[in-house]
């Protein structure tokens, strides 16, 4: 019986292999790896685009959360996958520009991936509790110079970690690592809670993660990093404060494949994304969460990510934040 089964197996596989050669990509469902947990910003973004994107692709998209190590576990799963376009990754600012910039021990580099698009930009905002008596960035910087200020993050090597240091540095704090204490938490929700309950003084994170706290008056925004104001955030933009360099400090979500992804597959993803991002419901849902839909084709996406990586890397080297060993 077993021999029989394997016999059938080989015949079938031979047939399938033969058809694969001239069949049009995609001929079956595509695995989409989300390197962060359910309910997080990446997950919600991915699952929102999945619907219109699935229609554009014409085959089902199977969403798989592979979490751990700040996005590294899921990224490695795609890095090691075959570059046939059937395993793709939802890449995120944390896993693909902050992590590579900060961690020498990261098991992958940007060169191991081929980005096919970036479709969403999330402004970053810094916030404190109203009870802290801090009303502006100047107040915060004054407090930092007095000492005893701390900021929370969702973990070492996360966007929040880098953002805290980068913002202080831009506002003239000589050595942000010494002047303010970084208190890492486990996850973005815990990072916001840490500011709420007074464990940390401030945090800088995606505006979508702060929106409900700001709307409820539990947190007070001090600044947003985009050139345009963010709806619902009564705070100056980085440009109004004269810190244009902070425009680079934004979150993003994109799609990447392994580095040996063929050109025609990458081009196809570009077309599909162009169709999918036109979907009105997708636009509505994402805008409601404070995201800016901004579609980049493969070349633009690569340039954007490398650009951000270089800025982060320079900062990390300057401050000695790189994690070795």
């Amino acid at each position, binding site marked *: 019986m*077993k021999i029989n089964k394997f016999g059938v197996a080989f015949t079938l*596989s031979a047939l*399938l292999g033969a058809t694969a050669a001239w069949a049009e990509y995609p001929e079956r469902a595509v695995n989409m790896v989300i390197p962060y947990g359910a309910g997080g910003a990446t997950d919600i973004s991915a699952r929102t685009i999945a619907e219109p994107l699935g229609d554009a692709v014409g085959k089902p998209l*199977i*969403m*798989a959360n592979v979490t751990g190590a700040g996005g590294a576990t899921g990224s490695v799963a795609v890095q090691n996958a075959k570059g046939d376009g059937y395993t793709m990754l939802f890449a995120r600012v944390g896993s693909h520009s902050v992590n590579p910039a900060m961690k020498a021990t990261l098991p992958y580099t940007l060169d191991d991936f081929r980005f096919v698009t970036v479709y969403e930009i999330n402004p970053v905002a810094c916030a404190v509790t109203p009870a802290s008596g801090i009303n502006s960035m100047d107040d915060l910087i004054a407090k930092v110079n007095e000492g005893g200020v701390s900021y929370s993050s969702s973990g070492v090597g996360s966007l929040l970690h880098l953002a805290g240091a980068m913002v202080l540095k831009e506002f003239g704090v000589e050595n942000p690592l010494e002047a303010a204490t970084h208190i890492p938490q486990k996850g973005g929700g815990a990072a916001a809670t840490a500011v709420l309950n007074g464990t940390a003084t401030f945090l800088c994170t995606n505006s979508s993660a702060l929106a409900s706290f700001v709307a409820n008056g539990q947190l007070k925004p001090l600044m947003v990093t985009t050139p345009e104001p963010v709806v619902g955030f009564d705070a100056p933009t980085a440009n109004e404060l004269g810190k244009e360099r902070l425009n680079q400090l934004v979150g993003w979500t994109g799609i990447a494949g392994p580095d040996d992804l063929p050109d025609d597959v990458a081009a196809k993803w570009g077309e599909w994304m162009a169709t999918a991002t036109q979907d009105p419901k997708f636009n509505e849902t994402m805008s409601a969460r404070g995201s800016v839909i901004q579609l980049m084709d493969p070349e633009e996406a690569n340039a954007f990510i490398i650009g951000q990586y270089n800025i982060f890397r320079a900062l990390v080297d300057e401050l*000695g934040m790189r994690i*070795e*060993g």
Partner: protein
Amino acid sequence: MSPKVIQFRLGIGACIVAAFLTFIGIPNWVSSPSNVQNIVLAPTFWPYVLTAMTGLAGLGLILVAGHASQDDEGEDEEDASGNPWLRLAALAAIMIATMFALPRIGMVWTTMVVFALTAFLFRTRHPVTALICAVTIPLALYAFFAHVAGVAIPQGNYVRLP
């Protein structure tokens, strides 16, 4: 095994683990950056504390073993029929083979073989039922996980299921 033997062996085992971690494990496999300001914040601090406590627990077990009874409490596992060690080794081999086969030939086919092999390893009295289940249960689980729950069950390189 009598309680005395159990306590004694566990104690020795715990001490060996503690010694291994202190001299080889932690120095080699826990990396600590050079710029740690305070010893209590170092990544190695907590593992060292736990290791020390494990060593103490081991010593405690050895001490207590001296007072424990030596009576063998007649355990059922000793009268297992056939060669139990052989069956354990076979099960271990099945598990290792499973890990090797999962990404290559796919989860459904692998688990079918695993089901059949373990059922026979346990010398089931219902061989036909076991074979039927070996085929149907993995298929049913696949159908549920892949199509209802939307999980990307590994398909392997050969035969893909719809």
